[in-house]
């Protein structure tokens, strides 16, 4: 009798252990931010262990750049992270300029800031869709992605391409502003200022959104910097950190804007930071349009086939919507890069950070957390 009880007890323990199930979220899953997989072990619906699996999108861009010359490399850059390609172009251009000592005309700097801020807005419009969609709120996504097209229209007008702009290149920008462009930008900004209220009504004022995001995906403030958290995610932990202010580039030090922060470290505070940043972007764009000087927009490079950079290396960081992105380039004095390396925010956010903060969360929140961290798989694998 006693022996039988012991066997029964053992069986129950085994069943308890079986409760830890492995789930494979991705690589093709609508809630995942791209082609990657999160392998999670869940007990009930609580995550006990998470592992990021990448490798579905590796294109060896860094290696390919070694075979291309300094100008040809530039066309690969926009593909590092599709939703927001401009900060990558900006980082590369600035790294090359830093290494070569190439001056950039003042007007080009303003145009670059305009590009970067428009890109930031466009990227946040996609984020709205992703973040709300991950919680089942699909209407906002329809709106914001639709409204993003107004920004893409501006890009098309300015650069000739809607998504892959290939516009910011070493020495300045590729083309000057077309006639009447500034007015179009201002009209679009007017539209957005009105429109943002609608997003608030549907998203930030929405109980569902509030309840699903508050206290979820918390990053401890004291560990944040050490864990490599950057950008809006770090500001969502209440830490004021923004490369535009800390390590200013182009003309950000001449512009008046604030860096919003929110205590809490959860999805909700990160969302609030982003919400405010869109408004700051509009503010920056208005200042840029107002203060843009006339003059040259491009300091011409030599014949690209014979364009060499001096020996050495350079590293240029840019604040993107995902956080700090940067380009590290090494030159051996030839017409090809010796090595280029792209530092993406998702490289840290999407692997070590995600693996840490998913533990203890509900399996239904994986997608919302990933969206709030700005995980961009093509940036991880490059």
């Amino acid at each position, binding site marked *: 009798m006693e022996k039988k009880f012991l066997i029964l007890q053992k069986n129950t323990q085994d069943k308890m252990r079986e409760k830890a199930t492995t789930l494979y979220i991705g690589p093709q899953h609508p809630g995942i931010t791209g082609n990657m997989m999160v392998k999670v072990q869940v007990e009930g619906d609580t995550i006990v262990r998470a592992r990021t699996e990448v490798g579905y999108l590796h294109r060896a861009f860094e290696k390919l750049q070694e075979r291309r010359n300094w*100008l040809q490399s530039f066309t690969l850059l926009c593909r590092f992270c599709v939703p927001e390609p401009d900060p990558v172009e900006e980082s590369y251009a600035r790294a090359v300029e830093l290494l070569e000592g190439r001056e950039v005309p003042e007007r080009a700097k303003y145009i670059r800031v305009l590009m970067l801020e428009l890109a930031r807005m466009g990227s946040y419009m996609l984020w709205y869709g992703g973040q709300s969609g991950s919680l089942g709120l699909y209407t906002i996504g329809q709106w914001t992605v639709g409204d993003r097209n107004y920004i893409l229209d501006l890009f*098309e007008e300015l*650069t000739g391409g809607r998504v892959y702009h*290939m516009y910011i290149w070493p020495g300045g920008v590729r083309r000057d502003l077309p006639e009447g462009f500034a007015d179009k930008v201002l009209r679009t900004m007017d539209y957005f200022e009105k429109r943002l209220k609608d997003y608030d009504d549907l998203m930030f004022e929405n109980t569902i959104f*509030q309840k699903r995001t508050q206290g979820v995906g918390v990053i401890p403030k004291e560990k944040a910097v050490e864990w490599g958290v950057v950008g809006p995610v770090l500001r969502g932990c209440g830490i004021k950190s923004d490369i535009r202010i800390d390590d200013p580039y182009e003309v950000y030090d001449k512009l008046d804007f604030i860096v919003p922060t929110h205590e809490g470290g959860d999805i909700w505070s990160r969302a609030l930071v982003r919400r405010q940043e869109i408004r700051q972007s509009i503010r920056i764009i208005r200042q840029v349009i107002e203060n843009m000087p006339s003059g040259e927009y491009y300091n011409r490079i030599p*014949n690209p086939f014979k*364009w060499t950079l001096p020996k050495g290396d350079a590293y240029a960081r840019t604040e993107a919507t995902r956080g700090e992105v940067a380009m590290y380039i090494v030159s051996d004095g030839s017409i090809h890069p010796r090595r280029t390396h792209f530092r993406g925010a998702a490289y840290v956010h999407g692997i070590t950070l995600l693996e840490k903060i998913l533990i203890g969360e509900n399996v239904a929140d994986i997608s919302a957390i990933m969206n709030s961290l700005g995980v961009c798989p093509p940036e991880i694998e490059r």
Partner: protein
Amino acid sequence: MSFFDLNGTLKPLTALKQFGKKPHTISYPKESKEAAPRYRGLHFNDLDECIGCGNCSMICQNAAIDMIHIDGIEGKKGDSGLRPRIDNGRCCWCALCVEVCPTGSLSLTKDYLYVSEDPDSFLWTPGKDNPNGKEQISFFSTEETSLNVFNRVPMPELEGKERVKSFAEVVLGYSEAEARAEASRCISCGLCTEVCPEHMHIPEYINAIATGNDADAVRIIYDNNPLPEMCGKVCTRRCEDVCAIASRGEALAIRWLKRYATETAATAEITREIVNPEIREANGKTVGIIGAGPSGLTAAYYLALRGYDVTIYEANAKAGGATMYGIPKYRFPIDSLDKQIDYIKSIGVKILFNTKVGKDISFKEIYDKFDAVFMGVGFPDAWPLGVDGDDAKGSMQAFRFLYMINSGEKVDVGDKVVVVGGGNVAIDAARVSRRLGADVTILYRRRVKDMPADWEEIEGAEDEGVHIVPQGIPIKIHKDEKGHVKAVEYLKAKMVPDERGGRPKPVAIEGSNTVIEATSVMAAIGQMGDYSFLPEEFTDKIKIERGRFVVNEKQQTGDPKVFAGGDAVNRTADAISAIADGFRACKAIDEMLGKK
């Protein structure tokens, strides 16, 4: 927050108000969005403007552009005859091809829809497959936006006022940094090599200079030109006329770059060390060469390298032919020529100076002594002006004048010189006369822009104060009582279009007689040959037609043993053509004698 949040439940319902708003999407496919004026869509190529340089296919980092032959487009000088074909399956519309197109023929259009079930049809040739794409052009390059560097690095020169004081070299030459900068403008297409009579390896040596390997550049240059420093200074450089960059900008300074490279080898010994040519073992065959001009020297140099025993017979005291005696020293200093002659001699070429064939040695003797003979005799005589009073004292041929000056003789030209003609010889004579202290007028039948002389030479002459009278036809030279030139009378001319499509002809205007005072008149209207050295027994085989030897494509005359080249053969009458003749003759002689 309470469990039930009224505000948070009702607020999202405000979305309902959107029902009353007009949708902001367009109703695709009924309406198709008009692309932006700068849109980067499918390619268009203006096939007539395109010169097939292939720069687009080189910059394409997706390897999406092939250069192909298409029916109806043949290669010609300055056009490879190839045209780009785009693999739209690979293209990413970065438009770098547009940015580097030197002619601006390639552009992108607003057209962005291309649907086909056949994947092979994604390969298409812009301009041929979308002939009406020209109206759709949206993303194009201008001189301002193009990534080609259209502006030449200026060549440092002496000031005009300084120049006339002496025979010092006018062009100072590029510094290393200037040469690298100029060389790096080259796109290495190679269109120039076709028009170069000698087909020098231009893109290769320019690239060597651009990458800082001057020694390699010198080696490449000496591969088929033993007188590159001369070419680097005075070549007629037809290569620069077809330079791809010249289609919208200033051509690469190919000549100056060659000059830079060869000047890095300062002496004949250094040249020998750098070029380090492979000299084949003597093969026992001998070649005799008449005339140490560019063609003779070239044939001699390359034959010597191939193991032949070469002897040159030169009538004058110095080698170089017309480049020695015809070109003023401010353009081509004597040291520079000597350096190259010394180098050629160091290879084993023997030159017998002051040995005029027909006088000091007979042609027959040379013919019998050597296994092959090459004649590079040039045009030693000049055409007289052929007007009334031509025989006056002080009326001379510009060519003779230059010969005397270059031989170190003194010539008194007085203080007013009139030069008749518009070629390089005319300009040279004018600029030399300026250096002798005379006021100089150039009288030319056509307009300044019709002058066959180098534009740089014409500009140089103007800088030095030479007065150019275009559209003037001399009719008479007035003499004073001592029979000396007193003045030149000329008629003004108007330009009449040529019915056959040639260049406009000058026609004298009756009654427009004008007289300018002169102390000397120089005719620079052409040179001619002197073939008196050739005994009659040879003239049935070695034919002369219209003042030139008749040769086949191997520079061979009717006598298989005798070859000819240079001014006495070709119509272009410049040094590089002479060098090309010499090189061709060398190959033919080697082929002929090597077989025996």
